[in-house]
């Protein structure tokens, strides 16, 4: 369970998050549909520990994440705007090295993840440099599927994805939530997630 209490965040002169609080239970998704510039990405980065809030508390499984951030990060997968892929490596190499930071995954598993992300048709030697933005996002989704983290923080996960790509994303989210995971999504467009328990949050000051 993720719990955020009384979070205040300033960016320069702007008081972006004013006493924000919410909970996110296992098996649930929460979509932040706030208008542009109201702090969706900042909230995700704040929860991940990439931004420091002026005050407030973030709890994971009942314990403040600040107490053992490294442990919290082991439960966390963060899909940011930038997919963190190396343009000169192939999709398989990118997956191998980024997953190598967390877990041991063999080549058949990596290939299966790329196949389920709809990238089976690509040449194995093709560097990511030649991929479209949507294909890069699919590689990032394939990585997400292998990350084995309980809490996913996704920043605009559907951007650049075509209809088939969005179906891949929906399937991925459904499987993750069915396995007891939780997802917090920052998105400007509501994701259609059939069969997925999801709440939508329209503005930071609105009650959930």
């Amino acid at each position: 369970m993720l719990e955020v209490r009384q979070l205040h965040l300033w960016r320069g002169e702007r008081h972006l998050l004013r006493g924000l609080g919410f909970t996110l239970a296992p098996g649930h998704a929460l979509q932040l549909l706030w208008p542009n510039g109201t702090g969706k990405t900042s909230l995700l980065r704040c929860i991940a520990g990439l931004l420091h809030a002026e005050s407030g508390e973030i709890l994971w499984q009942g314990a403040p994440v600040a107490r053992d951030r490294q442990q919290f990060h082991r439960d966390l997968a963060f899909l940011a705007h930038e997919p963190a892929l190396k343009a000169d490596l192939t999709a398989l190499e990118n997956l191998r090295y980024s997953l190598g930071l967390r877990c041991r995954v063999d080549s058949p598993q990596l290939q299966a993840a790329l196949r389920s992300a709809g990238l089976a048709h690509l040449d194995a030697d093709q560097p990511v440099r030649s991929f479209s933005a949507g294909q890069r996002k699919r590689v990032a989704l394939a990585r997400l599927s292998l990350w084995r983290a309980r809490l996913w923080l996704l920043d605009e996960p559907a951007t650049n994805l075509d209809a088939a790509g969005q179906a891949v994303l929906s399937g991925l989210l459904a499987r993750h939530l069915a396995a007891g995971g939780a997802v917090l999504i920052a998105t400007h467009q509501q994701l259609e997630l059939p069969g997925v328990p999801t709440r939508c949050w329209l503005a930071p000051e609105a009650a959930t």
Partner: protein
Amino acid sequence: MSEAFEVGPMAAARSVLARDLLLALRRPGEWLQPLAFFVIVVMLFPLALDPEPALLRALAPAALWVALLLASMLALDFLFREDGRDGTLEQFALSGQPFAVLLLAKTATHWLLTGLPLAIVGPMAAVALGAPVIAVPGVLVSLLLGSVTLSLLGAIGAGLTLGLRRGGALLSLLLLPLSVPALIFGARATQLAMQGDSAAAPLLLLGALAVLALTLAPLAAAAAVRIGLE
């Protein structure tokens, strides 16, 4: 889920090292540029000065070390910048692994690709400037130890300037004063080695600097990069 988290910090560091070496193999220009810069700067001295062997020999330690320092600065631009831009450093910070260990792995790769080649080419450049062949081991050891220190200090500077759009000049301004001890002891060790005297004292001091940098720089670099990621 996270029960499958089965990779220790050393295995994660190896993964970073392997990835960066593979990337360097695909982009040889990044590590060849500082090397070419070093050779050209050293070779400019005989052209700019009176090509008198005794004069060149006297100036060789200074020429070598100033060129090493400048070439190291040039190479530092590649250390964190791209990883900061494409989100890789964020993923490092959120990997659940000790951030300082991953950055140390990156710095080690950077040293393997820039510091080590410079240290290997350095003695040849010294001989070209009139150093006796017997000085080669001393020059090599001094450049090896000095380049380790410079790479580690450079990681702190590269971390501090990560968030800046044009951080190259600031990086040099930050690092050049910090590099002065390595420059002094390194140039002295090179000079003593070229004279055929024992260079043990400055080499030990260079070694101490390298150990100090190895102990503290990864932690400082990790703190600096975290600030840059905000």
